[in-house]
């Protein structure tokens, strides 16, 4: 049953972006076709234990933060110091690195949105933010000392729960900004970032909240990185800036990255009435499951149904599709063909921001959503870096008897996949993100033209 609901505007954005000082710096680097991926010293240190050593990351120093290390272990942060004085010490005490980025991003959002203290602290203001959660430095060290070294529980300090619980990012942001509305974390693996924004959109659309700080993040953790490295799905054998190569024939895995993307959403009429700068309007959000019992592999059918849900009447065609595009062998080809199946072979472009900063896991959906917002602002399409050669042969799954999708190879769609950014009139962008467990999510945003 479709309910019309209220219109929702995006009025702020912020976060933590690899190598960048802020969202403006992020935009400048993206639109000048730069790669934000580097050799990661923390992975390099483990030499032959890991297969991949590249990542899109931002150091504590680059974020203006510093860890105060506990006597327990040189890897264990007792707390952090904010050298730029943005976050009070009491809030830093209950936060891991990801939560700190979340708090910084939330403050940036609120400032850009121009919300008053009364509006922020309202019962009508919510926080919906989460991270992916596959790895955790603080838990790993705390458990190691308890289980292996036999120390008392208090030796790891009294902030293990608050700094590691699943919804720590939302909790820390809420404690900082003191909103009185919803405070929750929505998890959906690599769709988490977009999923939280989608959930927040629904809260406002259906009249439950007027304002929400929403997004996703992934705090730096080698513990997370090695999980994917062990699955042999990380990119290997390329220079750092050439490692993330969505759609390219030579792609062999994704680049595991870390960062945070937060946005401020507000009921549209309210934002308009107070003269807010409306960065974008959210037209629709749709999510579903593949339903084929496969934890890892994408489903063409699931993605077809995703597009039917996002554009039920085939109107509202996007000018740009912000792809999930991870640089994995199977994922990219299924996705490209499902987009062609939905939108045809011309009249739009695809972009793959992961080609520029890698896969931020819990942060991917929201950081890439911010990239989509920047495309609307700048009226420029972002590239698919390193998509040098597209397969001129059919994929194996296209040759299967039950295949009902496009019967051209990926190379036929070269015109849709730009390797450099370029100017274009962009009124509408579709954002796609998928996750383990077969979850698919899609959001359509457009310029505010009223």
């Amino acid at each position: 049953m479709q309910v019309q609901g209220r219109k929702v505007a995006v009025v702020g954005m912020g976060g933590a972006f690899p190598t960048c000082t802020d969202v403006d710096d992020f935009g400048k680097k993206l639109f000048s076709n730069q790669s934000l991926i580097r050799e990661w010293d923390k992975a390099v240190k483990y030499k032959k234990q890991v297969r991949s050593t590249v990542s899109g990351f931002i150091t504590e120093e680059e974020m203006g933060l510093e860890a105060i290390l506990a006597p327990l272990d040189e890897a264990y942060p007792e707390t952090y110091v904010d050298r730029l004085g943005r976050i009070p010490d009491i809030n830093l005490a209950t936060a891991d690195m990801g939560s700190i980025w979340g708090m910084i991003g939330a403050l940036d959002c609120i400032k850009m949105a121009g919300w008053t203290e009364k509006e922020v602290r309202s019962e009508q203001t919510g926080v919906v933010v989460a991270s992916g959660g596959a790895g955790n430095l603080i838990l790993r060290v705390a458990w190691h000392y308890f289980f292996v070294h036999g120390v008392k529980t208090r030796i790891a300090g009294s902030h293990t729960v608050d700094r590691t619980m699943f919804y720590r990012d939302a909790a820390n942001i809420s404690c900082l900004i003191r909103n009185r509305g919803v405070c929750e974390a929505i998890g959906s693996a690599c769709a988490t970032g977009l999923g939280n924004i989608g959930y927040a959109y629904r809260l406002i659309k259906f009249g439950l909240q007027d304002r929400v700080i929403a997004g996703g993040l992934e705090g730096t953790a080698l513990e997370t990185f090695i999980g994917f490295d062990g699955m042999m799905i990380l990119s290997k054998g390329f220079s750092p800036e050439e490692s993330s190569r969505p759609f390219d024939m030579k792609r062999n895995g994704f680049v595991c990255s870390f960062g945070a993307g937060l946005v401020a959403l507000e009921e549209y009429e309210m934002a308009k009435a107070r003269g807010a700068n409306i960065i974008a309007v959210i037209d629709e959000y749709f999510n579903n499951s593949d339903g084929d019992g496969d934890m890892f592999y994408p489903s063409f059918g699931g993605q077809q149904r995703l597009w039917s849900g996002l554009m039920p009447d085939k109107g509202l065609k996007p000018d740009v599709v912000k792809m999930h595009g991870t640089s994995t062998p199977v994922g990219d080809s299924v996705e490209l063909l499902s987009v062609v199946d939905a939108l045809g072979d011309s009249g739009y472009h695809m972009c793959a921001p992961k080609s520029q900063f890698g896969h931020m896991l819990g942060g991917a959906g929201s950081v890439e959503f911010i990239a989509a917002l920047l495309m609307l602002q700048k009226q420029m399409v972002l590239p698919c870096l390193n998509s040098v050669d597209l397969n001129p042969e059919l994929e194996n799954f296209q040759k299967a008897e039950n295949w009902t999708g496009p019967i051209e190879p990926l190379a036929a769609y070269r015109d849709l996949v730009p390797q450099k950014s370029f100017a274009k009139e962009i009124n509408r962008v579709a954002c796609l993100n998928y996750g383990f467990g077969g979850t698919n999510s899609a959001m359509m945003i457009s310029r505010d033209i009223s």
Partner: protein
Amino acid sequence: MERQEILEGLLEVLRTVRTIDPARLEGVTEETDFLTDLSAPSTELINIAAKVEHKFGIEFEDDDIDRMGSKVKDVIDLIILVKARGENK
């Protein structure tokens, strides 16, 4: 180590993989393919490799695993290669 001995050791490993139907392990030969004949989920190949390392006291290089085919004979060839590599050090 003889190929037949390695095959038997490999079968012992495969019997511990709960997502492989034990009935399919009857009549396994060197030509049996893990993916098409045993219907092993492709994500299990890495776990099988790790168990094989443990069973035979060897350690694969990343390139060994990247290049390994999905047939039983490919794994036996690799085990022999890596054992010989270890002995030559």
